[in-house]
């Protein structure tokens, strides 16, 4: 299985006032194509930081990140933005849709600014089961619907990898199951690699691998197949 994510010797610290606070203290991991990986750990363990670095939202203090064969740590911001647009999709806990655009426009938004092959937003909105809500604004939709729109948005540019930061954190259990089904469908239909940060056991159950992180270091990796 080809690796789509490789992280080598990742260290990350932030300057807070006059002191430097280390967050990640040497992370090495790989994620294969089509894998669903869950990253779990207590609050303050460095999950979001690691997710941000793997997703190209931030750069490590030291170390390398290779996304689909490209070392993103050496790229200028404009190239990094291209990688984010073309190879990576993000789903956030708070959905983070643009409130002034409709569901369809939110889904299509990344495609206006990137080159390369794109999916049809009308198709995507049907895939996520919201064809009847395409002209509604986010404020007119439920949490689950918004999250599904966010997932569709993340897929518009045919990303290799889908990153999720607590994607089901704001959803009720029923909706959570629907969303998780969707992730599995994506992996099956499009071969999308899915990397999720989560506290939820339900999310962990669909993962092929669970990575536990604590105090900025990987403590445990457990492998198991999909459960649902």
């Amino acid at each position: 299985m080809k690796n789509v994510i490789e992280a080598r010797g990742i260290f990350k610290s932030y300057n807070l006032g006059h002191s430097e606070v280390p967050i990640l203290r040497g992370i090495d991991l790989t994620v294969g194509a089509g894998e669903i990986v869950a990253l779990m750990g207590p609050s303050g363990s460095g999950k979001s930081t690691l997710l941000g670095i793997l997703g190209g939202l931030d750069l490590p203090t030291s170390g390398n990140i290779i996304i689909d064969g490209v070392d993103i740590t050496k790229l200028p911001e404009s190239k990094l933005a291209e990688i984010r647009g073309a190879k990576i999709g993000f789903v956030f806990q708070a959905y983070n849709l643009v409130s002034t655009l409709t569901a369809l426009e939110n889904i299509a938004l990344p495609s206006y600014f990137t080159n390369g092959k794109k999916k049809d937003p009308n198709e995507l909105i049907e895939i996520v089961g919201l064809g009847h809500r395409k002209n509604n604004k986010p404020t007119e939709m439920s949490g689950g619907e918004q999250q599904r729109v966010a997932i569709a948005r993340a897929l518009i540019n045919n990303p290799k990898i889908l990153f999720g930061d607590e994607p089901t954190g704001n959803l009720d259990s029923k909706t959570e199951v629907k969303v998780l089904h969707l992730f599995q469908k994506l992996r099956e239909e499009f071969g999308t690699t899915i990397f999720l940060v989560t506290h939820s056991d339900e999310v962990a159950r669909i993962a092929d691998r669970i990575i536990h992180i604590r105090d900025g270091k990987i403590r445990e990796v457990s492998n198991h197949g999909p459960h649902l």
Partner: protein
Amino acid sequence: MGLISRIGIYFKYATSSLLRRKQKTLFSLLAISLSVAAIIAIGIVSYSAEYTISGTVKSELGGDLLLNLRGGGFQVPGMGGTTTVDFDLIEDFLTGLKDAGTIDEYTYTLGSMAVTDSDEPRMIRFIGIDSGVYPLYGEIATIEPNVGDYSLLLQDTNDILITDTLSDNLGLGSGSTILVIVDDELVELNIAGVVSTGTGDISDYAYMEMGAFKELFNYDVAENPPNQIVIRTQNDYLMEDTVDLIESEINEREKYSIRTTTYIEQSENTLSSLEIVFTFFKLSGIVALLVGGLGIITTMYISMKERKKEIGIMKAIGIKNINVIFFFIVEAFLLGLVGSATGVALGIFFSKQLAVIASSIFRTSLIWTINSDTLIYGFLLGLFSTMVFQILPAYIGSRVRPIIVLKDMEGDDPFYKDIGFFIITAISLLVFGAIININLNSWSLVLVIFVLILIMLGFTIFCRYLVKAISFIPTLGILSLKMALKNLERNCWTIATALLAISIGLGTVGAVLMAGEGVKTSVSESLSNNLNYDIQIMSIPESSIKQVEERILLTEGISNLYRYSISISDCYIQSINGRPISNYLYRMSDGDRDFVEDRFMSGVSISGQNIGNDVINQQIASGRLLGVEDIGRNNIIMTSRGAAYFDIKVGDKIFFTYEDYPIEMTVIGLYSQTSTFGPGGGGSTNLGLMASYETIEEIRKTSKNQEFNIISVNDGPISSSAVILNIVGNGLENDYFSIYDENGVIISRSLSNSNGLKIGDTLTLELNDRSKKFEVRDIQNGPFNLEAQIIVPYRALKDNFSGIYTYTLAVDAETGYEEITLKKLGSMFPDYRIFEASRLQEMVTRMIDQVLIPISIIASFSLFVAVIVIANMMYISTLDRKREFAIMKAIGARNWSVLKNIAIENISIGVTGGFTSLLVLYLASQLMSIFLGLDKSMISFIFMMELIGLSVLISVFASIIPAYNIVKIRPLSVLRYE
């Protein structure tokens, strides 16, 4: 996705963002609109002023270009004066120019006189005109019949048009006939219509078609050419070409001295004196724009900060930095579009009112004129400025790191550590500079604006630290004050922006008012220094002057009495040390020559200094000042600055002509003026020519034109008619009359023809109910001295006509006797004008106020914009305290307590703003003392208090709406959602 879709999403996002943030959008729109309105209004008023002045000049001049065929004055027998022009040559030349298209049209008028054949004979002046072209500008308005085009009325040879004044005097109107005597023949003329000159000129003449005029008066133009020809050209370039051709083809070739005057030269004299006013206008508009821009940048920066997470999301999903910038620029484009369009409409509205107010600056009613250039420029300036002001916040926004989506922390590097920030700033400034240069038309003024921006930046940083310092003031346990001051500290940058806006707004208006007070004080002091008398008695005839002086000297309470200075103007410099003045002009640089020709070649003045009495404001540079040894002698002093133009030194002889009478003066000293006002003083570039009072007194009696009435010819009565006499004296009369001749006059040929006067005939002249009979000694070609029909020696008039030369006496009263002396002199000399020196100061003060008020209004545009900016800042500041006020209300505080808190914060800002405004004022006063030469003005305590009070008022007023919104907040809704 295509470009169109991308542009579509930019506009959709921009529109929805602006609508989502209604209050901020409204504030931004208001700031842009008012700034653009200021530029438009001021631009329209400036254009209206230039248009009015130019139009007035053309009408007064009669054309674009005026040719003076006579150099000035009459031909003095024995003098080598100007060559008489060959008028046919001139006409052929002008016709050639017209055929070639160089000039559009030319025309001239001819004049003559005839007496009416009636019971009460009356002298009428006739003016021959070419009705097809005259006048080139303006109009002759028809009164009766009111046909519009007056030329329609002149159909037959004997048709005339009379002015309304003449119509009243004759008691005749349109359709009547009138009999006149010309060359002893009776001619019947038809009054085809009554016209008005439209200039308010009380004139008494009749118009005739040129051909008919020449026939009637047997007028030979070659023998008696007109004094002036007016020309109209299609544009200013052709006008300049015409001037050059006249110089090269006529003056140089034929050795004529035809003087040309263009309307541009005439209006430039006026407009150049107003240059500083126009520059002030433009700068006021740009300052208003800067203040507005300040508010826009701050609002957009805060708006960007509020959307940092949204920007992070965009970048997380693959949108690049440049796209983020475009999102904001498109938003600015929409704001600029709507704001500028509103600003243009507002500006047009304001300009109408402003044009009325500003009329007092230009001393004439302005013709309100909109030019499209001003509107387009104002609109584009507003639009592009808004986009330029947005570039910095947009750039800073584009630098937001996408990690902010996951981690709620300030992950950005400070923008001032980013080299790209400085590059963007430099590019923005250059673009902004290029835009405003179109209006200012001067890169040095653009540089001044850049310096102002830098000062504003520095001032904002200073205010920021000032606010921080104020937040540490002991609050003496007053909780609301503590909360207010802590909020000031928290929002120090926002408050600093508000303070800058208050300071600029109040500072600008205050500086203008201070400058006005400074000018008034300076003028008053100068007047006090220069007026060393208390009372002037004016218009004392020569026959009475000695008697008046004796009576005054016998009056109690008088400390000094002397004859007040007189001056003669229209003296023409002919040569220096025997070399013609043209030699000096030839050797000057183009710029100097233009200046000298413009200022000194159309006539200069020579003042007569009352040695021993007049205030001396001269500091000798070389030679000496006037002394008692110069009394009655042709010795002059002049400014060293003026002398430098001609390289004149002490001992040089200058040859002038005054009313064609030659005067040779010797330069005995060069000086610089020590007071700001007066000839040669301060910034004046006059020659400052001065001789002794007695010298000028003699010279002025050499030649003078005065209107008399002819009341009788050969002892036969005629209806009184006006005629201009040239009164010659100071020895000049001996060139015309025998030294024993007390009753002789010389008359012009046209006067002779119109009255049938021959040598030996008599005519009786009358002035102010005094009359005398004279005998015609000679008939010569007139007019004399430009416009006179009769030459008469002064000695023949002075005993019968006392008011020809009048005197002014300066009286200095002893301290404490001023009022009494004024009353006494008033009762002693009820027939003379008595003037109190202190009233002059009042008049000058009033005049300065008339100019100061509209200038203050224009300066206050920036204050209006500042109020908007302050309101916006207050809104943002109180918004930050939403949660705080919600908690207060949740624990039982009433609306009044919340309002009190807001009020304390605003008053603190207002008081601070008052002090920062004073700082701006102080700096402005230092600058004014350097550039305007005013004394360093002290800012009075009362003025300080007024300024602080006004600043508090503005701060409180500006926060009314935000305060009202905050007070309405329900505590629960704010606490539920963070």
